[in-house]
């Protein structure tokens, strides 16, 4: 059903701009008056769209920070496990930290496993103690 059939005689569209984003939005108003929107209406609509842009930008910043904190928590876990594995290898082979990482890296590369998983095996094996 067309807009005219519903009594719509005018419309006003204002973009909601979000800087640095590939997401675009618009604020659309429809009216039944033939005269369209006044300058005051347009200014009000633009002011609203401006505020909406800020809300969207703040929401994006919040979720970006949330995702980063979640990723950092995982990274800290991984890093801790790898440091433990390096310590085990340094002690076992009497090598420095860089060489210990290189051993983990080579094992990861040749087995196509994540270095973190290789490190977890080293730590688990060391913490399991000697076979009975």
């Amino acid at each position, binding site marked *: 059903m067309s807009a005219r059939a519903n009594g719509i005689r005018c419309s006003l569209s204002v973009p909601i701009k979000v800087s640095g984003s590939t997401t675009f939005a618009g604020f659309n108003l429809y009216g039944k008056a033939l005269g369209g929107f006044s300058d005051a209406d347009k200014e009000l609509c633009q002011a609203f769209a401006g505020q909406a842009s800020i809300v969207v930008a703040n929401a994006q910043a919040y979720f970006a920070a949330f995702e980063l904190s979640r990723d950092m928590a995982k990274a800290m876990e991984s890093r801790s496990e790898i440091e433990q594995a390096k310590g085990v290898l340094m002690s076992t082979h009497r090598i420095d930290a860089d060489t210990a*990482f*290189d051993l983990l890296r080579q094992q990861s590369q040749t087995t196509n496993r994540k270095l973190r998983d290789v490190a977890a095996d080293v730590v688990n094996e060391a913490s399991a103690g000697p076979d009975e």
Partner: protein
Amino acid sequence: MNHLRLEDARRQLGLSTMEVWVDYFALGGTLDAIQLNGYLRGDGDICDADHNVLVHALNEVFLARGHDHPLTYRPL
């Protein structure tokens, strides 16, 4: 120039510098995000050990996408 190849790799993988840094940090890398960004863009050099951590961070993403360690490591 290996650091230029690393920046190409980052772009090819569609990763932000921050995403690369988090992966690098997770593997034990010691540079901060600004230093890593500078290195990726060709600003100076870093030690072989840190370079290899960065290379491995990128290679693990390549591996997850079906490419077998395309970036080369430096000998220690």
